[in-house]
């Protein structure tokens, strides 16, 4: 009996060790944060607030997952935020002409198109991704302002906002969509060859090329994937505000990088996992929600988030 108990606890300890190695310290810090927020303000622990945190997190989760694809290839995409504004504006105009469904689908095409452009230029001309996406950030932001003339596009079909406000049971539709997309992304990254290639590009691009893999194509689709994921986030965000806003989502670019960094994805490439990014997203969203419930100024929030990013990265390095 004792032997069985020992081996049972050994299995549990082994599983915990594997989990810790996989997601790092952050999961436990997230648990500690949730506990702290709940103690300071009990309203944090209500079911509805938990649902709210998930709803607020799902947009960042999609953009961060897209950013992760790019960072794994040792790149970065700074155009994702501006892409959201452009997608939002075009989606609004399309929905007014052709209905809500067309408006929901359009951002995926626009985001995917910009992502393909990013991937093509980075892969074909071997230019640093920061420089290329800085350019597309300017182009996307400018186009959004030109198309919208700097104004909000509103009076969209009422059905358009249902993408953001329908619940299936207690769970908001955007949360379900984000969860489904992340499951697909898990499958792509860890069950398909493409996922292994994405990691390998970041780990050793030259070795992969010598192994006969078309590295340019991998880069192309990594950036396109980031664009598509951002397009989905843009469709949902646009539905949330039921309008097209040229400046929508700009802060999500930095937050997506923060979530990836906090979640253990390194800029060197080839290192990081989707679970870590999801926890990073939940961490940032929990912090934001908790601070709002306490009433902390957004200036203080910025300082705290920045400090936590540094602390999380340092602690993760110690773990390694």
């Amino acid at each position, binding site marked *: 009996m004792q032997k069985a108990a020992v081996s049972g606890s050994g299995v549990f300890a082994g599983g915990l060790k594997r989990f810790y190695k996989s997601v790092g310290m952050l999961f436990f810090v997230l648990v500690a944060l949730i506990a702290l927020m709940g103690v300071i303000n009990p309203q944090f622990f209500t079911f509805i*607030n938990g649902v709210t945190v998930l709803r607020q997190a799902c947009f960042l989760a999609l953009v961060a997952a897209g950013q992760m694809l790019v960072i794994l290839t040792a790149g970065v995409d700074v155009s994702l935020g501006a892409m959201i504004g452009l997608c939002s504006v075009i989606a609004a105009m399309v929905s007014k002409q052709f209905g809500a469904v067309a408006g929901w689908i359009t951002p995926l095409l626009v985001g995917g198109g910009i992502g393909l452009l990013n991937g093509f230029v980075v892969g074909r001309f071997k230019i640093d991704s920061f420089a290329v996406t800085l350019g597309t950030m300017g182009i996307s932001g400018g186009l959004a302002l030109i198309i919208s003339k700097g104004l909000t596009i509103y009076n969209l079909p009422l059905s358009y906002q249902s993408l953001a406000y329908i619940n299936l049971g207690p769970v908001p539709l955007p949360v379900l969509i984000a969860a489904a997309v992340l499951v697909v992304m898990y499958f792509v990254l860890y069950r398909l060859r493409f996922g292994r290639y994405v990691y390998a590009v970041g780990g050793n691009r030259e070795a992969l090329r010598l192994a006969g893999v078309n590295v340019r194509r991998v880069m192309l689709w990594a950036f396109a994937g980031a664009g598509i994921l951002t397009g989905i986030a843009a469709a949902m965000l646009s539905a949330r*505000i039921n309008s097209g*806003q040229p*400046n929508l*989502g700009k*802060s999500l670019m930095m937050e997506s990088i923060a979530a990836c960094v906090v979640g253990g994805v390194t800029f060197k490439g080839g290192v990081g996992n989707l679970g870590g990014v999801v926890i990073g997203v939940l961490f940032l969203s929990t912090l934001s929600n908790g601070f709002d419930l306490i*009433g902390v100024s957004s200036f*203080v929030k910025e300082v705290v988030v920045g400090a936590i990013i540094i602390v999380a990265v340092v602690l993760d390095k110690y773990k390694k």
Partner: protein
Amino acid sequence: MRSVRIPLLIVVLAALIAPAFVAAQAYNDDWQGIMAESIYPWGKRLWEPWERVVPKKPYRIGVSIPSLGSPYFVNQVYGYLTEAQATGVGVTILAAKGYEDLQGQVSQIENLINKKVDALAIAPISAEGIAAIVNVAIQKKIPVYFLGEAAHTKNLTGYASENDYDLGFRGMDWLCRNLKGRGKIAILAGPAGNTYTESINKGARAALKNYPDVKLADEKWGDSEDPAVGQELAENLLNATPDLNGFLVVEAQVHGVANTLKERKLTDKVACVAVYPFQETIPYVRDGSVDYGVTGYSLTNARILVNMIIRNLNGEPEVPRYVWTPGLDMTRESINTFPRFHVWAPEGWQPPSFMNVEPKKK
């Protein structure tokens, strides 16, 4: 090291979010008695004085503003905090990261709804953009009030505002009259996609139609809080149109425009009008580089809104639905009698880290 990691993190977090509350300075009760245009739900319009009221219960008001980076909203925060202290209601104020953080404001309103506040007071980044979440609040029986434009949200319980359209109109009208109905002007319109700048712009263009010989040479949208942006735009516009006669500028950009005019010794030749000038604009008005400013009762509007909310929550039968406060002119001649306490917080006042006032228990 391993054994102290988690506790260390917790201690660091706790230290960082420890309260750093700075009490609001003594407020100025001179705001009471201000005449404002009250519009009642059944259509009656009256110019009547506003006074402070006593709440029947310890209500809590949730406030959402776009940013603390703008003195306009810092003044509002002062109004909310001091009036909450004076009346005995509670207030929790959340600020988004700026005019571009619409999804942030939506999230903050969501969080205030979860906090189960008795009423929401919102200065919207975009009235259309937050309409959906406002409707969620109303469905949860939380009355919603706007401070600012509310053109596209029909379900509000009330709002208090200066009339941005009117301010834009007055500013442009003064500029055109100053140019004697002839000349070329430029507009620095502020951030795109925001309800208040769109209203100012509409008002300005409506006034411009009355002066067919005043031509709009150019219009630039952009960050209105950054004087450096205004300076660069003014330089480029003057280079592109050397015979430009006037500028209409929204907010702090006007300081940059005024600096350009002074540098090029054009203050006597090019008129400069500020919509929503700040305290920092006063020296420019005194030295003549800004010729005219028009603003609203930013601070007092917040105080009026608190009292409107209390009156509704108290169950008063006749409470106005809309309250417009008039615009305030500022020129070199009138600057010494300008009623600052209606517009600006005391010089040097800064919002505390926790913008929270607890209600006084009855």
